């Protein structure tokens, strides 16, 4: 079983400190400075989920009509708007997928698949949490994810974002063992880097909570125009720093938020802005970023990290 993990720890044990200076230079394909990807979360929240002893699913007693309907808007309206707008600017999605969506709304999955979007696992439902699962149960969720997405899309899942960001101390070991190449669950960096797992080669892929539409709209209360401004600033800084060593920018989205009629127009402004900078930006999918990093930069990064960041 390898190293033991308990329920108390001082840090995640997943990576060593690695300061953001003098790192081996990352070069993206075509000499681009910034790898840019978009992560639409395509989610299903159940009306009557079973109870997890560690986390409540809904703020109100079941049926929480207001909050359920709020999210269902994405599957009736928002996903379609978002797909159309992203396709207009030739931006592919890397979908953080509630796997049961393949069963509930195959039309949405088929449409995204036809556009060339990638799918990675975001759990079976966003109302089923990993907290309290033993290794067999968590493995079953991951194997279900692989099986279901392969059957629905022909794709082999390469990435993970735990459902509702609920983890166990075994999560990273399990996804690495099952052949996943990246996780979006960690927020310690703006560049990909190797993670310490029992087996495999697993990369920490920059995602974001800070520029996640959920945080922007519902936690920080940003207007659609303010959010676009935030995205442009994030883009400007990461593009500038990418001249030194390649950076990654991810825009994590939820169609039930960004797909609203008052938000999709201002969001389109960000895609126009991206379009004007294409010469310097690798607009791609998360799996491609992970593959490129593993093939060209993983080993150098590992050596540099082991030296404590000394060249």
């Amino acid at each position, binding site marked *: 079983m390898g190293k033991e993990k308990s329920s108390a720890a001082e840090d995640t044990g997943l990576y060593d400190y690695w300061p953001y200076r003098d790192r081996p230079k990352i070069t993206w394909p075509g000499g681009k400075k910034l790898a840019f990807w978009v992560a639409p979360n395509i989610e*299903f929240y*159940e*009306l*009557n989920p*079973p109870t*997890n*002893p560690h986390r409540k699913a809904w703020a*109100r*007693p*079941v*049926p929480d*009509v*207001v909050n*359920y*309907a*709020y*999210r*269902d*808007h994405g*599957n*009736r*309206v928002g996903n*379609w708007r978002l797909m159309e707008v992203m396709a207009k600017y030739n931006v592919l999605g890397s979908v953080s997928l509630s796997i*049961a969506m393949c*069963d*509930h*709304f*195959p*039309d949405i999955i088929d449409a995204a698949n036809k556009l060339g979007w990638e799918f990675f696992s975001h759990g*079976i*439902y966003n109302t*089923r949490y990993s907290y*309290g*699962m*033993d290794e*067999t*149960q968590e493995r*079953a*969720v991951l194997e279900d994810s692989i099986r279901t997405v392969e059957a629905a899309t022909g794709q082999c899942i390469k990435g993970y974002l735990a459902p509702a960001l609920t983890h166990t101390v075994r999560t990273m070991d399990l996804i690495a063992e099952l052949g996943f190449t990246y996780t979006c669950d960690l927020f310690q960096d703006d560049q990909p880097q190797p993670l310490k797992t029992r087996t495999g080669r697993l990369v920490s892929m920059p995602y974001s909570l800070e520029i996640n539409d959920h945080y922007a*709209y*519902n936690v920080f*209360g940003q*207007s*659609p*125009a*303010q959010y676009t401004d935030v995205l442009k600033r994030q883009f400007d800084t990461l593009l500038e720093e990418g001249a030194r060593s390649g950076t990654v920018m991810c825009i994590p989205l939820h169609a039930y938020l960004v797909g*609203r*009629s*008052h*938000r*999709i*127009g*201002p969001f389109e402004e960000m895609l126009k802005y991206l379009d004007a900078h294409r010469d310097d930006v690798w607009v791609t999918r998360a799996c491609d970023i992970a593959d490129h990093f593993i093939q060209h930069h993983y080993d150098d990064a590992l050596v540099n990290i082991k030296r404590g960041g000394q060249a």
Partner: protein
Amino acid sequence: MALDDDYLRYPHRQAGMDHSLYPTSNLFERPKIAWPGGKKVALWITVALEFFPLTPNDGPVRAPGAMVTPFPDYRTFTTKDYGNRVGIYRIMRVLEAAGFKATAFMNSALARRYPALLGDVQGAGWEIAAHGVDMNHVHHGALPKEEERAQINACLDEFAAHNVQPKGWLSPARSESHQTSQLLAEAGVEWFGDWGNDDMPYAFSSGVTAMPFTDELEDRKCLVTLGQREEVWEEQVLDAYDWLSVEAADHGGRILHIALTPYVIGQPFRIQSLRNVLGHLGEKSDIWCASGTEICEAWCAGST
């Protein structure tokens, strides 16, 4: 210890929804709706007229706006009452000046307590839609069916005593039990606004029509919950109009829903913001301002 085995069973993992309240549907694959006069965007303004009793309920759901301090919570009670005394009259004046009419979601307790308010809202030509008994009478999953039926009937009976027969309904706090839409259908309600999962009306299995409640543009959510500035609220409403108007050209009539709260938008420092929004919308030639029932009936006629 592991989770119970049931936690990895998915009894409703199937095509469509995980319940039978309504079928799933892609907005962009439905028949195109034509509004009267060939207008592109139906403007649906709703105003919540709510009574929050000084003693709040002890149930599992307390409505947003309910009392918060130990009894007697004069500050919350009077703040809400301000909306029903002052704020609503400001809103009515602004709408009249703009030439628009609204739909009032009214607790029946207000019809009983403030019949003058009911008369004035009717006199303004607004539609009266039922909003339950009061904000303590919240419908929720643990409410026994007979009790919920009695609450619905008590509300509709009170309005009937004032010669009002509401066709529309909004549950207090938009909270429901599993059988709310069925009970509303049995009570003769034609449409309800609890479900915010669409941009257009759609039919519930119970036969009641779900009208698209847009909580994301609600004054209370934007200005109070999220603490946005008034200009930001205005901008978002107008951005929504812009998008819907363009979308309507390809996909048929759309609805711009603006949900207003008298104790929020009716404040002196905010009312100008409503005037601004309605002033801009008043200049659009492709808008049809209509009541909930008018929109619902036009949709029903056009979607079959």
